[in-house]
């Protein structure tokens, strides 16, 4: 029986899709059968970040509306056999997503996978609501910046009231904080909130600290989830977060952006 995890934030552009791709790929690397689902109907993007945009035939909405079978819409990752992607529709409007449809698809996926990662759209509208509705756990992606923290707080309120677990009076959705675009140098200067500050405000367990890193953009450029780059700090930080998501206790590291050594810089310039 799969665990359903929603990756959400309220605010856009904080790294939900990057994090969905990285956590999904990371779990698959650790041997877990994982499927990542794009809930951002009309603005399909997870397929690009995962590097399978040219293999999309059918999508999530086609399955919900009975126009395709689930196995036809699922795309198997070429790098990791445990990883599948369920892309969203680019043409339909967000009303095409229904609670009954989502539930049916999730129930079908539950038997075949260990983890179902739902990539929520920004905002708190239908897509975001349905992405979190059936979740068992939530990864709240937050930047150390006022509007992002505020929106995360709002989303935490919704997770504890507008989800199936909340409505049925079951054990609440378990939240995790994933702090992204963290820059220790700016924190040291007092220009960016510290991890401790954000934790004190949101008071939920910390899943990981992802440093601001040029590797993230490079990874999305080539359509490879950033965890594949084990040498990068962002990749290593996501790998740590994956371990914690699997329940392992590992020490929290605050990694900085990659710094090139003198020789590396010299070589890089001439390259």
């Amino acid at each position: 029986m799969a665990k359903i995890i929603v990756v959400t934030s309220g605010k856009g552009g904080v790294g939900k899709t990057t994090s969905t791709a990285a956590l999904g790929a990371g779990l698959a690397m650790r041997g877990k059968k994982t499927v990542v689902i794009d809930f951002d109907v009309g603005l399909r993007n997870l397929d690009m970040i995962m590097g399978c945009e040219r293999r999309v035939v059918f999508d999530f909405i086609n399955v919900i509306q009975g126009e395709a079978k689930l196995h036809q819409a699922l795309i198997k990752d070429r790098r990791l056999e445990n990883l599948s992607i369920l892309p969203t529709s680019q043409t339909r409007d967000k009303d095409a997503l229904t609670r009954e449809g989502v539930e049916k698809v999730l129930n079908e996926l539950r038997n075949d996978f260990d983890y179902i990662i739902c990539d929520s759209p920004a905002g708190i509208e239908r897509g975001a609501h349905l992405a979190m509705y059936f979740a068992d756990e939530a990864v709240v992606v937050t930047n150390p910046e006022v509007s992002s923290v505020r929106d995360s707080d709002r989303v935490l309120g919704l997770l504890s009231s507008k989800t199936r677990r909340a409505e049925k009076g079951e054990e609440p959705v378990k939240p995790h904080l994933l702090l992204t675009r963290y820059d220790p140098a700016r924190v040291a200067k007092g220009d960016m909130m510290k991890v401790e500050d954000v934790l004190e405000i949101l008071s939920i367990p910390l899943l990981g600290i992802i440093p601001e890193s040029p590797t993230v953009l490079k990874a999305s450029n080539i359509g490879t989830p950033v965890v594949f780059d084990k040498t990068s700090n962002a990749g290593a930080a996501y790998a740590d977060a994956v371990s914690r998501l699997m329940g392992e206790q590992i020490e929290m590291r605050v990694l900085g952006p990659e710094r090139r050594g003198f020789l590396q810089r010299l070589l890089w310039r001439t390259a």
Partner: protein
Amino acid sequence: MTLLSFFRRTPRVSSAQTAKERLQILLAHERQDRSGPDYLPLLQKEILEVIRKYIQVPGEKVEVKLQRGAEMSTLEIDIELPGAQALNSKRNIPSPAFAR
């Protein structure tokens, strides 16, 4: 400014510290508001109804201001009542336009 005070400058509050404090104050209020309905429009409507029992006030002459603080919040309701001139001009029959 003495030479000593130059060396003893009080440390500047960092912008990150300001961010944290602003969030703490705001979120304390927003979390509270979330549990109940948005009462401000209703409050404004009901106060206006009470006042209209006695005086005619147009809806747009009401201003509701809320200042949220850490220690306390203030709700300021500013209602502009018609002045003596406005009241008099209404009573002048015929109106000034016809009084030539």
